[in-house]
């Protein structure tokens, strides 16, 4: 990933030279050291001047970092741990979501394809079970027991079903014509 970025930056420098911008303005240093900081955008308004700057901010838990899951070349942070994560492990899952509870994309989480799929599905499971109800959009009622119909009741999920196909639809039977047999329409 870092090599690609360097190549990209070189291409950018080449293009800049063609246009006539000094390349040092575009070339940025890329480090291979541990990444434990995020970006935040601050806006300052002084009279008619608006300054927008991106500031690197420490992760919320940067004082307690599990070194094992960081600095692994070619291995993602969950694979490096070697722990089987379940959908009830909300302390792990909540690190991979946005403040409104949506799963982050793979280019930000840095997970491998398999783990991204697993974690993404387990985040959905945890939300459906009402285990991460504080990480929700502002219009949410937050309390899972205030949800409507069947959603207010507790349910749990099986992690072995992740990434598997749904079972085929059973054959049609006359009895299914009845209302309420499966669910209220």
């Amino acid at each position, binding site marked *: 990933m870092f090599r690609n970025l360097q190549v990209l930056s070189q291409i950018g420098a080449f293009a800049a030279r063609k246009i006539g911008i000094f390349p040092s303005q575009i070339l940025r240093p890329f480090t291979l050291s541990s990444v*434990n900081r995020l970006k935040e955008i601050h806006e300052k308004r002084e009279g008619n001047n608006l300054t927008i700057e991106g500031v690197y901010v420490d992760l919320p838990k940067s004082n307690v970092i599990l070194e094992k899951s960081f600095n692994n070349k070619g291995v993602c942070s969950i694979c490096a741990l070697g722990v089987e994560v379940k959908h009830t492990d909300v302390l792990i899952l909540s690190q991979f979501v946005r403040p409104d509870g949506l799963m982050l994309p793979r280019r930000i989480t840095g997970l491998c394809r398999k783990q991204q799929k697993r974690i993404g599905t387990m985040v959905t499971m945890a939300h459906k079970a009402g285990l991460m109800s504080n990480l929700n959009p502002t*219009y949410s009622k937050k309390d899972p027991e205030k949800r409507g119909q069947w959603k207010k009741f*507790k349910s749990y999920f099986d992690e072995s079903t992740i990434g598997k196909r749904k079972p085929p639809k059973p054959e049609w039977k006359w009895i299914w014509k009845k209302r309420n*047999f499966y669910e209220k329409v």
Partner: protein
Amino acid sequence: MSAVKRVQQWASFARVWHLFDARWQNPFDSGVLIAKYLKGLYKPLYGAQSLCGDHVVVINCRHVALPGNEWRKRVYFHHATYPGSQTWTPAWEMHTRNPVMVMKKAVYTSMHGNLQRRHTMMRLHLFADEEIDPEIAPRISNVIKQIRPVPERLDLMPEEKVKSFPQIADLDKDYVIPELKEYPNWESKFRKMKKEGKKK
């Protein structure tokens, strides 16, 4: 029969009162477990003819958990013998009407349909919440172990526990932390549909 033997007989045939917390438990798995205690199958002196069954008090029946989408997909059939009187009620509807019924039916169906079943069910005491009948509470002398571990909710966890948990996610350095959007005039889809229906 000597006095010692007689006391031994009383002690072995005395009814034990068990407590089972159904919070976050699958009612159909725990129904099988409860039936074992109701019939006294765990006792070495068990016999089908001997009355060695125990009482089981089940609390938190309202908070049972079903796997996946079973609240919608599981249906309870009832037929009042009149033509056209058959009904199919989803589990979630049954649970809103009576928070104890799903657990009761799970225990009932886990036993064979013989003449003893109704009498065995009389020894089952179900409570929707944590409050137990004050007459029953002092008799309980044993707690049945739960099948599934009770999961913890992130919003109810103590802050120290959340903060002391190590950072595992190795997030991208240039990820901009988004701010929570405010939706001042947000209304749910269903409420909108209801309002539009009223206008018509």
